[in-house]
């Protein structure tokens, strides 16, 4: 197929597998995803006084509060502010992105009743927005690292992989959630509760050493965010490359979440426009 026919023929009985069709359509509509991403970023910052600075101030504020509250308790942690901020940023990337992937589809889904677009567009652009916001928040993070005396090493070149893994996991989870949230608005609210419980089950504000050995191994195996946060923290806070055995299990979980989310979402997505 060197030449694309001028008149494409759409045949509802000759569609490839939904998950593959969705991939093809996402590629064909890639400019739409960029436009949605641009729209989200622009409208978020256009009419706010501090504009883009909010992305950086937000995690800093939370970090400040947590540092003030907990620094006495966790006084043993070297550069506690940096420890919290690295953990928070990884967590926020996941939590905000998976949530936005779900909410965008529910609120922006009106469009699905009016015109054909690939249904994953909203989730993918939400992931893009989350990644860009987190990259911006790296700026104040570097300042915090310098102030708290945590050395910045070459291990930071590993960060893009950490981003990729967390974003991929968030997309997979977000897609699965979307399928439910489109039918039941309370799923979005329930997810908020789950998220806050999940955050406290992940060593973000506390050092993992304070957990009893049994709890710790339970969290390590059952909570994928444990290792994903760690993969974000290692190159920044600990200043070293993760070992292969630290990366591999997470990578497998991310791929599984992504594939399951993508396939499940694609299979169910034909029904979305039937929702009356």
């Amino acid at each position, binding site marked *: 197929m060197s030449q694309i026919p001028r008149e494409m023929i759409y045949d509802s009985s000759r569609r490839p597998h939904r998950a593959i069709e969705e991939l093809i359509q996402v590629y064909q*509509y890639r400019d739409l995803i960029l436009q949605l991403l641009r729209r989200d970023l622009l409208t978020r910052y256009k009419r706010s006084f501090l504009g883009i600075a909010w992305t950086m101030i937000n995690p800093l504020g939370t970090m400040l509060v947590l540092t003030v509250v907990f620094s006495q308790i966790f006084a043993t942690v070297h550069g506690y502010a940096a420890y919290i901020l690295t953990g928070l940023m990884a967590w926020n990337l996941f939590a905000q992105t998976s949530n936005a992937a779900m909410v965008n589809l529910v609120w922006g889904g009106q*469009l699905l009743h*009016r015109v054909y677009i690939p249904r994953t567009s909203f989730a993918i652009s939400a992931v893009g927005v989350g990644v860009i916001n987190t990259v911006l928040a790296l700026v104040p993070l570097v300042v915090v690292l310098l102030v708290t005396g945590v050395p910045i090493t070459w291990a930071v070149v590993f960060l893009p992989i950490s981003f990729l893994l967390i974003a991929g996991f968030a997309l997979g989870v977000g897609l699965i959630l979307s399928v439910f949230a489109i039918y039941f608005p309370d799923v979005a609210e329930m997810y908020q509760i789950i998220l806050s419980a999940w955050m406290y089950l992940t060593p973000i504000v506390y050092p993992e050493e304070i957990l009893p050995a049994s709890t710790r191994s339970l969290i390590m195996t059952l909570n994928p965010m444990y290792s994903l946060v760690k993969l974000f923290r290692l190159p920044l806070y600990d200043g070293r490359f993760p070992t292969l055995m630290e990366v591999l299990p997470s990578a497998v979980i991310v791929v599984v979440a992504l594939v399951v989310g993508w396939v499940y979402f694609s299979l169910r997505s034909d029904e979305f426009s039937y929702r009356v």
Partner: protein
Amino acid sequence: MENNQSLAPLPEDLAILLENVSVRYRVPTEGINTFKEYAIKWLQRRVHKIDFWALHNVNLEIKRGEVFGVIGQNGAGKSTLFKLIARILQPVEGRVVVRGRVAPLLELGAGFHPELSGRENIFLNGSVLGYSHKEMERKFPSIVEFSELGNFIESPVRTYSSGMYARLGFAVATDERPNILLIDEILAVGDESFQRKCISRILGFRDQGSTIVIIAHGMETIRQMCQRAAVLSHGQVQMVGKTDEVIDCYRSLQR
């Protein structure tokens, strides 16, 4: 599941083909608004749904280059039919085949964002319609010219009047000649002079060979514009044929 007959290629002279198409909505008998309610009712085995067939066993052939009218009362399945052609809905049963690019003029400016300027919305809306950024850069000047928005193009869309909004939507959707144009007649765009401009553009598309399908509400438009038409009633095609005969059939149904 798919027999050989249903996989026959689209005949050369057809633009749209529907074979035994059915669309079913499942409507819960009572409102279930939250997941909690659903879970409880599901446990009590009280989730009942009734099937509503928006279209049932519809067969329709629309030829290339013809102007085709669809008439029917509210809820007869006209919009569902359009959504199938525009790929928004998938049929539960049957087959829908569509040749070429479809421009649905059902709701103009789908996906406009009120905070963004007209310029930004042109690109956003264009990408929603499946055009690449490059294509939109090429189209941009003629879209602005057709929409007659002038300097307003840099203002946020929330400051636009509804006429301006519709003009911009129409200009984006019809900048390139589509192979198939879906028009809901109820759609009135701006003032009278702009409406004339829209109609002459649509007629131009017709003369260049586009297929046009119109949801008609008044019988006059359809008599003037369409060669053939179909009557839909309760999700089924009652009649397809010459416009005059179809209108007679529709009138007799209403009695």
